């Protein structure tokens, strides 16, 4: 138990360092910087654009299906991880078992793929029609 805990102690040290690093950065910045806000300074910065509205916009519902499929394969990785640690000691039986496991799930991936759940939403640009140029060279050649 102590051994496992001390291994996670390393993780805890990283966690603490991350917290201290970020908090220390904010703290020193707060102590060092002058505070002279004005409306232009405090406005949301966006390069070349006037920021309009809230950043919390409605997402496309397509992301939801992709996230759901991601979770399924996330759980699959969790199942396969213990197998991967001992797979060399277990030999071909474990390999076949894992292939069957992954194969069944790949069926699901194929299903989602065929049904078009993985198709990204493409913009459908409407090309504005060019006004007819009667004296244009290209149109006269095509005619």
């Amino acid at each position, binding site marked *: *138990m102590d051994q*496992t805990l001390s291994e996670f102690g390393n993780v805890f040290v990283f966690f603490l360092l991350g917290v201290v690093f970020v908090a220390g950065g904010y703290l020193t910045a707060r102590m060092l910087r002058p505070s002279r806000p004005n409306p232009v300074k405090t406005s949301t910065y966006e390069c070349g654009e006037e920021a309009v509205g809230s950043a919390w916009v409605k*997402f496309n519902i397509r*992301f*939801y299906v992709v996230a759901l*499929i991601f979770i399924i394969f996330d759980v699959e990785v969790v199942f396969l991880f*213990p197998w991967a640690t001992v797979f060399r000691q277990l030999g071909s039986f474990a390999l076949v078992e894992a292939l*069957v496991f992954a194969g069944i*799930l790949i069926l*699901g991936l194929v299903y989602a793929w065929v049904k078009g759940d993985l198709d990204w939403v493409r913009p459908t640009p409407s090309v504005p029609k060019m006004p007819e140029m009667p004296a244009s060279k290209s149109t006269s050649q095509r005619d």
Partner: protein
Amino acid sequence: MSNPTYTAIFYLFAAITVFSAAFVVFSRNVIYSAFSLLFTFFGIAALYVFLSADFIAVTQVVVYVGGILVLLLFGVMFTNNIMDTDLKTDVLHAIPGTFLFLGILAALLFTFYTTNGWMPSDTQLQGSVVERIGFETMSRYVLPFEMASILLLAALIGAAFLARYDNGGTNEH
């Protein structure tokens, strides 16, 4: 757990878990609730580490923080007027709620104080349990392992079927 450093770290993570969970419940803004849930999940993962369940802890981070929380944030972001909506219910059953709270608290405390010991394990586990889980899934629990994949397949197909955005049959192309 006699080491005071471990105890201090344990209470730190317990406090993070409890306070962030309370914030999830009490926050009026659903986005802040969702982000606070991140700390709850991380705190619970740390508590799993203290139970020597390192695999469960990593699973908690991978699945809940990496998957479920992202899904939840997506779900929040699909809704309209996220920032404006003031989450407040008009249905407040204060008196029955208090009785329910006190009853559950009493039951938990009663069990806590009347249980004779916590049945500590005879053998101390050394090192990681991940390899042991790997051996067990490949020997004694092979069939449940494969059944889990079928369960996941059913979940995938069901989820994709239910959540599919059908905009007038364009999926058929």
